[in-house]
């Protein structure tokens, strides 16, 4: 419990730090959102209209940074992330809520699959050292060094086309509207296959490697020998004793690497035109859309934090030593 409270305190602190960072970074960005907007559309606006845009965006007020900071918090507590500039006057929260599910599903599912697949293979490679499983390592090392986006683009080139089963872009078929029905869901799954595969291929090797190393380390622990000495079956020793213990460091590693994974998927979303937050962020950057940028960065950070917290809870459940009372 104590451990848990400590973690929560840490997350609150991190969230605070991230939000503050998030507040300041866009303020250091040079340039001006109104101009960026005009440039984005290579548009032609009268100076009067430009003035009115400044007013609309709330950029006219001369507030102290501190005041802005307080306002920002105040807004956050009301769940208000402001209005997007690029998609003016759509609220940022609306944009995020439409794109977040995509990212969450894609990243979430692939990460979990990648984690379990990688861990499983790692257990094999670590437990049956010297067998075929060792051959896995060089291949995975190479694949993990390939940039996500490169792999994605090649996948698009090789696997998509007019008659291909794999769509080259988007999150679902055109003409469809997101809904839980038999038209939309298969289409969404179909569209997610390639991005998911890309993420999977480039992220799975990390898990294989770290799990293998942990397995090797754990294998030489006394309790493994004891488990063998107890005459337990090889399977049981491998899973309940070795893998179970080797998993622990990987679980916390899992949580911490989420940040990296999110970074990677951002690129995958860009390449596959996947309607997730990563792509939104990319667009918001180009358009100087502070509120959207802030909102997305905040959401990404908070998702990572939440995932971390979940992983921590999992760790808590998996490792009795952290449950020390008192």
């Amino acid at each position, binding site marked *: 419990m*104590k451990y848990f*409270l*400590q973690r929560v*305190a840490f997350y609150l602190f991190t969230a605070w730090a991230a939000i503050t960072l998030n507040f300041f970074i866009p303020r250091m960005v040079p340039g001006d959102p109104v101009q960026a907007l005009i440039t984005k559309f290579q548009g032609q606006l009268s100076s009067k209209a430009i003035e009115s845009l400044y007013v609309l965006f709330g950029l006219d007020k001369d507030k102290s940074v501190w005041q802005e900071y307080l306002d920002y918090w105040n807004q956050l507590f009301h769940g208000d992330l402001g209005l997007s500039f690029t998609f003016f006057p759509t609220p940022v929260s609306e944009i995020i809520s439409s794109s977040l599910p995509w990212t969450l599903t894609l990243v979430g599912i692939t990460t979990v699959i990648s984690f379990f697949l990688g861990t499983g293979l790692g257990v094999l490679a670590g437990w049956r050292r010297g067998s075929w499983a060792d051959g896995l390592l060089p291949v995975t090392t190479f694949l993990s060094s390939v940039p996500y986006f490169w792999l994605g683009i090649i996948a698009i080139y090789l696997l998509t086309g007019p008659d291909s089963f794999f769509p080259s872009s988007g999150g679902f078929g055109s003409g469809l509207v997101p809904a839980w029905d038999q038209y939309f869901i298969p289409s969404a799954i179909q569209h997610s296959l390639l991005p998911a595969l890309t993420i999977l291929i480039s992220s799975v090797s990390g898990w294989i490697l770290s799990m293998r190393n942990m397995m090797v380390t754990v294998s030489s622990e006394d309790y493994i020998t004891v488990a063998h000495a107890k005459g337990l079956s090889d399977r049981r020793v491998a899973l309940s004793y070795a893998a179970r213990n080797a998993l622990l460091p990987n679980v916390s590693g899992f949580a911490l690497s989420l940040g990296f994974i999110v970074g990677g998927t951002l690129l995958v979303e860009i390449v596959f035109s996947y309607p997730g937050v990563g792509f939104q962020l990319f667009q918001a950057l180009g358009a100087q859309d502070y509120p959207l940028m802030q909102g997305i960065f905040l959401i990404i950070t908070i998702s990572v934090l939440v995932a971390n917290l979940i992983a921590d809870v999992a760790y808590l459940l998996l490792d009795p030593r952290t449950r020390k009372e*008192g």
Partner: protein
Amino acid sequence: MTSIPDAKAPAGEVVLEAIGLTKHFPVRRKLRDLFSHRHDVVHAVDDVDLTLRRGQVVALVGESGSGKSTIARLLAQLYPRTGGDIQLHGETTKVRGGAAFRRYCSQVQMIFQDPFASLNPTHTIRYHLTRSLKIHGNAGTTAGDLAQALDDLLERVQLTPPERYLDKFPHELSGGQRQRVAIARALGAGPEALLADEPVSMLDVSIRLGVLNLLRDLRDRLDLAILYITHDIASARYFADQTMVMYAGRLVEGGDSETVTQSPAHPYTKLLIHSAPDPDRMIGGSEAEGEDAGNGEPPSLIHPPTGCRFHPRCPVAMERCRTDLPVPLQIGDVPGHWAACWLYDSDDKAEVKQ
């Protein structure tokens, strides 16, 4: 030039003295403690008096976690103390780094339990010894002086010929050799007092004795004052002039080694001696098993038992032991033998007899 001054003062002179030495480690505060004003501490060492004399070995015996190492580190000024005083040649010393600390450790040096851990694996023996000599100004002025000093050091710890060892890395030496290097490093400072924290417990049985004999030899030749910390009471008997027994952060008995080991007074000392392996007590004769040895669990040091800390385990505990802290009491048999146990309070003795 000899880097280590031989015999500065007559034997028997007090070199280092601890008076009422106390060390409490703060316990990491928990979240809920933030709201209360509780400050839990580990009572690692409480009110310990200890005297190291030139040319004498004092052994400190006690079970694991009783605070032996803490005393050594306090004496080496590696920890700031919570209370009490450490006097070097009768002068109060309280140093926290800087030149004063260096001056102090040129006189008081420490040897650690684990020779595998106390030498930096990335440095050669030469580096270790040279640093020790240089820091304390014992390296002379020329390269030749240094080489000579290094040779002297290694010879002193019987690592001969010196050239064979100087450029080795610690991992290339055996445990006994490493511990000798550690001792040489301590000697490099030219100390008057050596604090040896379980210097042989990590060594192989067959080489332990060599190191102990070396230390004894150094005591005699250099008139060093040595604090010998161990959990092996038999080796204290073998090696030390005086033996102090420690239990849960407090000294419970002290005196001449032979007396303490042969006629222990404190129930804890008795338990300790009884528990030590004794080849003469062969497997058949398990009649000794009849004695109630108490349970083996040491007490919590965060909330130590009131009164005598041994009372929960003590087979002869009295009511008074639960409430009153025992004071060191002279035991009649040999001068200088004392025990902190109410059994030896003359009034109580009478009571016990009744």
